[in-house]
Every structure is written in C-alpha cells, then in structure tokens.
C-alpha cells in the first residue's frame, strides 16, 4: 500500500519557454533507463530477493515514482502553452499528431515504453547488478540533459535527480555487500 503526499519530492521550476527540452526530457519518462522503468523494475524484483534487501527495493522503487512525477511536471510545464506551430518547430510534430500535448510513455525518439526494458532474473546478484547499471545509466542521462539545457531552474531539478541516482547506486552496492555476508566477519591472514 502507498500513501500519497500531494507535493513534489523537489520543487520543479522552468524559467524559459523551450518545448524542445520536453522532447529530450521524455527519455527519462518512458525511456529504457527512465524513471518508469526504474520504479517497475525495483518494485517487481522485491518478491524474489532475500528479505534483508526487500525494504531497500520498496523504498527506491517508490522514490522513482516521485521522480517520474517531477519529470512529468517538467514536460507538462514546457508544453502546456505551446501552440501547434511551436510544437512543430520544437520537433514535437509527430508527438502532437498522435497526442496533442498529452504526456505519453515513450523515449526521446518516440519509441513506446516496453516491459522488455526491465529484467527479473531471479538471481539476487544479477538483479542488483542490473539495478546498479540502471542507476549509472540514469545518472548519465541526466548529465547529457543538463549539458544540452540552458535553463538554470530546470537544471537545478535535474541536478537533484542526478544526485539521487548516485545515492541509489551506492545503496544497491551496499545491498550486494550485505548479500555477500562478509562484512562483519573477521578477516584472518
């Protein structure tokens, strides 16, 4: 069960009218390494992982939905007042033809989201290593987005999200260490 707090995890501000940025941002919405993929991946893996790390997957999976909401807000703000002409000029012509300014789960190229983006191998180490890789890929995506955006307020939000990926990655690395069960053992030479 979840309890919903009617606010964003971090305030989203957009200072320039640049719908083109929405086209890039959607990569983190419905892309392979995006927040939707992350949330679904972790929350699904919870059922077949040793008890000690289930809570971690619940926590991080839940937080990914909070990130998804931030990305959605960014995209919404960038496109809500765009005219059809502006959507076209921003390269969002195909999106507009299909969706008007509705959000949709696809990547920056318009490829729709698929469950094939996520894995569940059932092997705890294999699954956690996938999670670590996913966090690093999301971190990299945020870097490339910041590199291309010159909106300081938007970048502020993207920096926060990037920092969270760093923390998530570390937590998954710690989960691997916990499962290795060597941490509190004395080492003799």
């Amino acid at each position, binding site marked *: 069960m979840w309890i919903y707090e009617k606010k964003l995890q971090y305030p989203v501000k957009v200072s320039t009218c640049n719908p083109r940025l929405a086209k890039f941002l959607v990569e983190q919405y419905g892309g392979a390494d995006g927040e939707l993929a992350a949330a679904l991946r972790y929350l699904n893996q919870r059922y077949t992982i040793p008890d000690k790390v289930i809570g971690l997957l619940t926590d991080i999976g839940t937080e990914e939905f909070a990130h998804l909401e931030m990305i959605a807000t960014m995209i919404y703000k960038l496109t809500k007042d765009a005219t059809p002409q502006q959507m076209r000029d921003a390269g969002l012509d195909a999106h507009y033809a299909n969706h008007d300014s509705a959000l949709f789960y696809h990547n920056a190229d318009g490829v729709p989201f698929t469950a094939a983006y996520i894995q569940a191998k059932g092997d705890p180490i294999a699954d956690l290593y996938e999670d670590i890789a996913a966090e690093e890929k999301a971190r990299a995506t945020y870097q490339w987005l910041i590199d291309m955006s010159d909106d300081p307020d938007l970048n502020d939000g993207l920096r926060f999200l990037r920092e969270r990926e760093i923390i998530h990655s570390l937590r998954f690395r*710690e989960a691997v260490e916990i499962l290795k069960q060597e941490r509190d053992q004395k080492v003799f030479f």
Partner: protein
Amino acid sequence: MKYVKSYVPYHSPFDPCPPIGKKYYRTPPHLYMTFQPYNLPQFSPQEALKKGTLWPALYDYYENPYDRRS
C-alpha cells in the same frame, strides 16, 4: 575536480568537425565507497533536501563541462 575525468579522442585530418578536444566523463564519489561508513559529517536537513543527499562526501555537483560552440 577529483570526480571529473577526461581523455582526448583521436582526431583525423579528415574528420568533418573541429576536434572537441577533451571528452569528459564522471566517476562520482560513491564509486570509491562501496559501503558507506558510519558517522559521516552531515549537511543541515534543509540543505540536504536541496542537494539530494545528507552527506557532503556523496555530494557531486554537476555542470556541463563543454564549451558552447554555436
């Protein structure tokens, strides 16, 4: 900057664009930690909420490392 790394990709005389020079990548602080030690110094709660982490040792501010070329 400790966590910013770079290398210079080969540039052929026949490449169409001017060389980008250094190509950057990041190796953020968590890579050097594996398991976070207890009792690390902390930001104030307000600052932590802004930065996205409670611990300065894990904070890695990101800025576009490339020059603008237009």
